[in-house]
């Protein structure tokens, strides 16, 4: 048996040697940048006249609503662009969309599946996934548009946050309520927020605002899986709050509004942009939401941009949310960065990153708030403020672009 075994080992080793010395396909892969006909440096993610952009979205997990709308909108945006001006007048855009179902490990794996093939990423949903990817984005000079607005995202140069951070959003919406007389100086803010950076961000905003206006914040932390907000609202009611600030998910928003209405706590509710989805209007809490909810958003409601709504509805038959506006805005920001890179003569990943950093103020024509990308700072000080209503997108603007008086102080101080 020993001789047999030895013979087998020899045989297998021989096979190994033969296979290994045979040409390895991977060995011949040569990276490196080239220059296109019109003198623009190109590299990863560009084949012929096509730029490939990646998309790490969530179509099956908790953020499926957002993911689907953004994905649809971006597909529509590039379809239109490809049929018209293209990028740089030359390149059409091809998307590689991957669905991670809000599973961090899967998201990271999927990133590695397309990172050699894409120039940049136009959408990455999920804070933990964005956090997990940070190192790799830096290593790959991969410009990325996160579907989130956390302060820490702005600290990675590759991240292109389209909108204000959660802190700024919360200050803006509270400031708006103060200005409109919905709340007064010295009021008591009850803040219900998620554990984690999203919630903490919103809370930091309301705490800063409270400091400026002699207010007090009663904080209640919840987990994403909580659905029944009775105990939390009861607590706020017993504290006698004058406004409820929320940094939660849509399900909790409906519950909060419903419980507050049922228990006679008729106060305004101020939320960060992810708190709302138009589907909430069909719930029993619909009327309460229409009456009391104010949301700060990085993108304008459809009433500001009816043409986008029309274009979308011509293509897709679902009820659009503001995710559509965000998808358009993100695609437009990506287009402008790519155009800038092209103008600078460098469409390599590094060139795109440089373009992103040097682009200055980005104006998306009123789809999103005006943006300027400085590492570590909120890309914008402004928000759109909307109320819930029975219109497409479920939101009507109550003000034009709004920038609270305290935001500047916050940005400088923070």
């Amino acid at each position, binding site marked *: *048996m020993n001789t*047999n*075994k030895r013979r*087998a*080992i020899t045989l*297998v*080793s021989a*096979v*190994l040697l033969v*296979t*290994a*010395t045979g040409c*390895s*396909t*991977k*060995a*011949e892969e040569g990276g490196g940048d080239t220059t296109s006909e019109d003198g623009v440096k190109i590299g990863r993610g560009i084949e012929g006249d096509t730029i490939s952009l990646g998309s790490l*979205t969530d*179509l*099956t997990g908790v953020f499926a609503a957002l993911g*689907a709308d953004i*994905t*649809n909108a971006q*597909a529509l945006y590039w379809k239109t662009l490809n049929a018209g001006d293209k990028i740089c007048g030359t390149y059409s855009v091809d998307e590689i*969309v*991957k*669905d*991670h*179902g809000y*599973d*961090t*490990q*899967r998201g*990271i*794996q*999927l990133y*590695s*599946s397309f*990172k*050699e093939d894409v120039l940049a990423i136009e959408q990455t949903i999920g*804070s*933990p996934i*964005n*956090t*997990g*990817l*940070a*190192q*790799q984005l830096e290593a790959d000079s991969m410009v990325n548009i996160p579907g989130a607005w*956390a*302060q*820490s995202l702005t600290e990675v140069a590759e991240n292109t946050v389209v909108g204000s951070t959660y802190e700024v959003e919360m200050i803006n919406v509270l400031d708006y309520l103060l200005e409109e007389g919905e709340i007064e100086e010295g009021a008591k803010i009850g803040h219900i927020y*998620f*554990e*984690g*950076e999203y*919630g*903490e*961000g919103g809370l930091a905003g309301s705490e800063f605002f409270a400091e400026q206006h002699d207010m007090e914040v009663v904080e209640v932390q919840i*987990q994403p899986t909580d659905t029944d907000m009775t105990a939390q609202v009861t607590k706020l009611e017993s504290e006698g709050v004058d406004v409820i600030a929320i940094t939660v998910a849509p399900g909790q928003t409906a519950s909060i509004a419903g419980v507050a209405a049922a228990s006679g706590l008729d106060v305004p509710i101020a939320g960060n942009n992810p708190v709302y989805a138009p589907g909430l209007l069909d719930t029993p809490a619909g009327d309460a939401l229409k009456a009391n909810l104010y949301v700060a958003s990085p993108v304008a409601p459809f009433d500001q941009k009816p043409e986008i709504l029309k274009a979308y509805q011509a293509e897709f038959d679902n009820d659009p949310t503001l995710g559509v506006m965000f998808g358009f805005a993100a695609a437009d920001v990506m287009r402008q960065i790519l155009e800038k890179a092209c103008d600078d003569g460098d469409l390599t990943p590094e060139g795109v990153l440089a373009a992103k950093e040097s682009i200055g103020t980005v104006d998306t024509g009123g789809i999103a708030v005006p943006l300027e990308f400085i590492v570590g700072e909120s890309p914008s000080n402004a928000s759109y403020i909307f109320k819930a209503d029975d219109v497409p997108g479920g939101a009507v603007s109550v003000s034009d672009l709004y920038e609270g008086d305290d935001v500047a102080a916050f940005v400088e101080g923070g």
Partner: protein
Amino acid sequence: MSDTSTATRLVKGVVLLALLVVLLALPLYVEEFWLRTGFAVFAAIIGAVGLNLLVGTTGQLSLAHAFFLAVGALTYVYVSGDPGGSAIEYGGFGLPPIVGMVAGVVMAGLAGVLFSPIAARLRGIYLGVASLGLVFIGQHLLNTWTSVSGGFNGRLAPAFDLFGFSFGGNEEPYLAVLGVPFGQAERLWYLGLALCALACWFASNLLRSRPGRALQNVRDSEVAASVMGVNVQEYKAKVFLVSSMYAGLAGVLYALSIGSVAPESFSLLLSVQYLAMIVLGGLGSVGGAAMGAAFVSALPLVLQQYSGSLPFIVEPGQPGIVASQAAAFLYGGAIVLVVMFEPGGLAGLARRLKRQPRPPQESPPVSTTSSAPADSSSGGTPR
């Protein structure tokens, strides 16, 4: 009889060796995505083999595996990671990664030992649900203890290196084999392969040893085992220790595979996936656990990768079944089919295909029933 068994062992040896050779050669050919998937599979195999020792061999249902993985992963990032974080600051010792890895394994084992008094008191399904509690309590702990975990979004996992040879990060020293540059993915592949082979080898030796047989007796009947002189409590505690150490190592690799750890990654779903792995693979079998782990952890990624060419799966954004749902259907369905028709799992199936009769102690599914009917002529049916 001894002739055939020698021949069988030889065939088995050659098959294993050939498999090893193929696995060793793969990084020369396949793309980074597959290598990374492979690394995740190796991590899953280690975890599944560990869980199998507990559930398959000793018959203790545990849904807490995700928790022990979390302990391993968190210990690794804390011991070997540097302090950092912007919104939420977290600490770290910044020690060499190998120290972190060992610490991760040890801490997970310790957590297992701490839990084992509870495990010893509870049996079967009560243990299963109590261990479910551990997952939730553990997640709460991780979310709360932000100075360690980095909070909801988690924290980055330091790249692994061993005596100056880096498995990621700076990729030093530069290494190329046969013209193929060995980057992070290639290096991690070998790291995973080595650890995984070691873990499987240790587990199969353990199962063949005297303690291994004692564990199987504990599964079949605690009363009988104790009559035969097996210290049931002690063995249960020990197997919890070993199983959670496996989970700890799997957790460290999981962290390396993702590059970061977030509390959310260690949810009940992860425990359920591990359970699915060992059920599909075949309870009690090391090879089965490996097959099950490969199936469950790679399936969603493979389906996603080939969603374009699979007729029943639509591209993301289209109405219909997308890859991750198809994967969920497939392994949910596979669990049902396996329990119904092939309790031996993939391992049992492979065995049946080979038509090699086996000594009975290797084939049975978990059996925890001990309420033998009163008459002496009960039970006793060969499996």
